[in-house]
């Protein structure tokens, strides 16, 4: 696990979609990195919308220091118990958009 919400945001769908292009490995993973970065921004946007502005700084500093610490999720649940669902919904919506974009180029 690289960041604490990775188990809520799978890249398998995108990976399989890019596989259809039969690209070299380096190019394939470069595209996956761009998708990963996009999802990262979207998820962070949702998280910051769900927690008070007063704790944004504290959360960002802690997240920057320990990206993979599962305790972050417990901290977020103090403010929004269903934060996992919110993250999953945001990730799924973004992935659907990206898959449509990718498949249109096939």
């Amino acid at each position: 696990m690289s960041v604490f919400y990775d188990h809520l945001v799978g890249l398998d769908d995108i990976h399989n979609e890019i596989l259809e292009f039969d690209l070299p490995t380096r190019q394939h993973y470069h595209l996956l990195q761009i998708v990963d970065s996009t999802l990262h921004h979207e998820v962070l946007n949702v998280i910051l919308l769900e927690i008070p502005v007063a704790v944004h700084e504290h959360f960002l500093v802690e997240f920057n220091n320990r990206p993979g610490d599962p305790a972050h999720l417990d901290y977020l649940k103090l403010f929004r118990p269903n934060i996992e669902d919110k993250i999953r919904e945001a990730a799924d919506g973004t992935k659907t958009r990206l898959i449509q974009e990718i498949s249109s180029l096939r």
Partner: protein
Amino acid sequence: MQSNSHLGKIQLMAFWTNLFGKAEDKYETLRERLTVHEQNSQEQLHATHPHLSDLFAKHQIDLRQIRKQGVRIATAAAVLGAFLAIPHLIGHPSVTTPRPQPNGGKEVTRPVADQSGRITPTAISTQAGTPVEQSSVGTGTPSQPEAPPSDSTDQPDQPSSKGHQGHIHGRSYLAPPKEHGLHDLGLHRGQLKNPQVPEIGPHPSELTVNKKEGKT
């Protein structure tokens, strides 16, 4: 005939060029489209939370670095796990646990340096025969394994310190017997008697066996 083969070569080259060219085009197109999505999500994040720029600058936070740092940690953990699993994968896990001695733990004393630097004996419970790390502070000597007390009379069943461990005189228990079997008697091939060993009695070959007549 020659023109046909030439045409075939050109077609083959065109095929490979086309193949790679198309793949490169696809990659570039994909990259451009996906990058647009990435930039949009980033702009949306900063538009929704305008105070983030100040926070990122204040704490030197880079969202891409967070991801890379997480990936580095995951990679390091995977490499470490694979390294630690090597002995088990090849079927030779290292055994570091000392064997328990049959006579159990014994109360022994060893000198320990106190805060003033003086060495005072302290009672500790150790397994006899088990090496114990000894503090060498102020002694100027390297640490030595703790020797068990020399009360050999209490341990009649205890093997001696020079005891063999699976070997007798350099030969393993599991080794096949010697060809002529004379080495264990201190003899060599072709030598039936050891001149250094005084004879106690007649050689077994010189003994005559009286057999009772009538029995078969």
